[in-house]
C-alpha cells in the first residue's frame, strides 16, 4: 500500500543519522558486535582445541591457546573405546534423524493436504483434534508416552525411538496453512488432465513446494539429531543409544577423557554444521515459519 510513497522519499534513516553522536554510537555498536561474536564462537574454539589436544595439554595448569601438536589420533581412540559404542550411536542417530524426518514430513504433509483440500464433513472436528494436541507441552508427555511404548515392547529399539515422534500436530498444522495458500490453478490444470488427489499431490503440489519441505526438513532433522530426553528414556540398553545419550553417559563415566569426549562432540556436530553451511537459507525460513504462527 505504501510502496509508491516509499520511492519518493529519501532512501533514509532506519534509526540513526551520521551525526557525531551517531558515529560514537556506531563505534559502540561495532564493539558490542565484536564482543558478541567472540563469545558466540568461543565454545566452537574450545571444541576444536580440546578435541585435538592430548589430555596433558588440556589439564596443564597454564592455558595454552592451541594444542602443542594436533592430536588426530583422538579420532581413532574415540572409535576404539569399548566403553562407549560411538559408531553404533552415530548409526542410530543417523537412522533416527533421517527416517524420523522423512516419516514426519510424509505423514504431516499428507494430513495437511487432506485437511486443506479434500472436502469431508467432519474435517473441522479432525482439525481441532489435531490442534488440541498443540496445547499439551511436549516434554511433559514423556512419562505417558513411555508407558505406551513400553507396553508395545519397544523400549531400547529404533522403533521406539522413531515411531512415537512421527506424529507432529504442529507440522500438520503448518502444512495445512501452507497448502491453503497453494495456488489452486496449478491443481485445477492437473485435475482437468484426469489426475486424482493422489496424482495432484505427488506430481504437482509436492514438487512445487520443495522449499517449504526443505525448511521443515532442516529444522526437524536438527531437532531429531539433538533430542535428548526421549532417547534417554527409551535407550535403556547401550545398543539403542543415540549420539546424545552416548555423550551424556560419557560425562558420568568414572574416568573422563576430556580429549576423547570433545572429539565425540566434534564428530557429533559435524553433520549439523554441514547443514548450516549448505541449507542455512531454508533453516532460517523454517525458524521464521514455525516460530511464529501467522
Amino acid at each position: 500500500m505504501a510502496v509508491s510513497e516509499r520511492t519518493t522519499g529519501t532512501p533514509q534513516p532506519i534509526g540513526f543519522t551520521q551525526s557525531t553522536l551517531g558515529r560514537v554510537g556506531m563505534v559502540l555498536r561495532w564493539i558490542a558486535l565484536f564482543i558478541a561474536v567472540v563469545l558466540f564462537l568461543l565454545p566452537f574454539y574450545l571444541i576444536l582445541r580440546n578435541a585435538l589436544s592430548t589430555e596433558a595439554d588440556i589439564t596443564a595448569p597454564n592455558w595454552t591457546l592451541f594444542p602443542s601438536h594436533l592430536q588426530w589420533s583422538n579420532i581413532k581412540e574415540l572409535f576404539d573405546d569399548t566403553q562407549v559404542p560411538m559408531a553404533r550411536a552415530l548409526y542410530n542417530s543417523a537412522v533416527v534423524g533421517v527416517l524420523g524426518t522423512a516419516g514426519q514430513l510424509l505423514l504431516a504433509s499428507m494430513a495437511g493436504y487432506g485437511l486443506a483440500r479434500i472436502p469431508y464433513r467432519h474435517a473441522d472436528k479432525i482439525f481441532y483434534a489435531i490442534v488440541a494436541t498443540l496445547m499439551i507441552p511436549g516434554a511433559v508427555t514423556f512419562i505417558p508416552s513411555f508407558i505406551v511404548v513400553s507396553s508395545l515392547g519397544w523400549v531400547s529399539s529404533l522403533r521406539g525411538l522413531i515411531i512415537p515422534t512421527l506424529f507432529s500436530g504442529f507440522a500438520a498444522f503448518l502444512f495445512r496453512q501452507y497448502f491453503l495458500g497453494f495456488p489452486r490453478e496449478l491443481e485445477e490444470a492437473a485435475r482437468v488432465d484426469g489426475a486424482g488427489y493422489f496424482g495432484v499431490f505427488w506430481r504437482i503440489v509436492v514438487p512445487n513446494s520443495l522449499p517449504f519441505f526443505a525448511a521443515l526438513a532442516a529444522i526437524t532433522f536438527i531437532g531429531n539429531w539433538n533430542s535428548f530426553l526421549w532417547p534417554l528414556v527409551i535407550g535403556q540398553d547401550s545398543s539403542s543409544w543415540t549420539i546424545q545419550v552416548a555423550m551424556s553417559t560419557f560425562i558420568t563415566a568414572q574416568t573422563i577423557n576430556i580429549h576423547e569426549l570433545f572429539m565425540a562432540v566434534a564428530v557429533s556436530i559435524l553433520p549439523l554444521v554441514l547443514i548450516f553451511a549448505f541449507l542455512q537459507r531454508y533453516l532460517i525460513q523454517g525458524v521464521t515459519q514455525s516460530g511464529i504462527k501467522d
Partner: protein
Amino acid sequence: MSAPTKTPSAADSVTTGERRRPRRRRQKGIAGNTLWFWVFVGPFVLGLLIFSYLPIIWSLVLSFFEAYNTATPSKFVGLRNYIDMLTDHNFLSSLGTFTIFAVFIVPLTFVLSLVLALLVNQVKIARAFFRSVFFLPTACSYVVASLIWRLSIFNGVRFGLANTVLGWFGIDNIAWLSTVSPPWYWLPLVTVRLWLQLGFYMILFIAGLQRISPTLYEAAYVDGAKPGWQVFRYITLPQLRATSVAVLILNLIAAYQAFDEFYNLIGNVNYARPPLVYLYGISLGSIQDLGHGSAGALILAVIIMIVTLLQSRIFGFGKAGD
C-alpha cells in the same frame, strides 16, 4: 469465480484461515472424497490417537492408581497421588527452581536476542556473516553445550577457562557447579541456554524487524522523532508486539520443560532440580513410580497451560495487528 460470496478464492482462504470452508465448489468433481480424505489424513490421525491421546488418557488413569513398576495397576487410590505431589517438598522446590530459572532466562533472552537482532539488522556489511555466527549454536545440542560448559568453561579446577581467567586476577578457583552458597551454578545454567537459544529468537526478531514498513520510520523522521531511543520506543517496539509475545511465550514454555542442561550439568541433585528432572527421577529411576509420575506430569501440564493462557491474555495475543 462468479459467486464470490459463496466461493472464496484460495487467496482469501489463506488470509482468513479456517473461518469458512473453501471446498464446497469442487464437491461434484471427484468421487470418493471421504475415502481420499482418510487415505491422506487417516495414518496421521491413527498415530496421533496412539501416541498422543492414548498416553494422556492412560496417564490420567494411572494417576489415580498406585503404580509401582507397572503400567496396568489394580490399586485405586483416588486423589492420593495428586495430594502427595502437591505436598511433596521436592516437587514444590522443583517448581521453585523453575521459577528462579525463568526469572533469569526469560527477560535475559528477550532483551539480548532483541539487541542482537537490532545490531545485526543495522549492520551494512557482512550481515549474513553476523547472523550466521549468532545462529550457529542452534546446531548444537544441549548435551554438547553442557559438555563444553561443564568440562571446559566452568570446570571447577584450575584448567577450566573461567577459573583460568579468574586466576589472572589472583582469584581462587570456584567450584561452579557444586557451590550452593553463593549459588554459582546458576551462571553456567543460564549462560548455556542463552548461548544455545539467543540465535533462534534473534532470527524471529529480525523477521519481525524486516516486516516493519520503512514509511513508519520516514514518518517519524518527518515528525522530528529523535533517532535512536525515541524511534525504538515509539515505532520499533510497538511494531514488534506480535513477535515479542511469541518470543516470550515460546521461551517460557521451553524453560518449563528444561531438562537436558540441568541433567547434564549437575544431575539429579536437590538444590537445583527443575520439575522434569524430578519427574524423570521418580518415574524412571530405580523404582518406576508411574502413579506419582503421571500425577506430577499432569499437574505440570496444567500449570504450563494456565500460565500460557494468562500470558497471552495479559499481552493480548491476537489483538496485536501485523
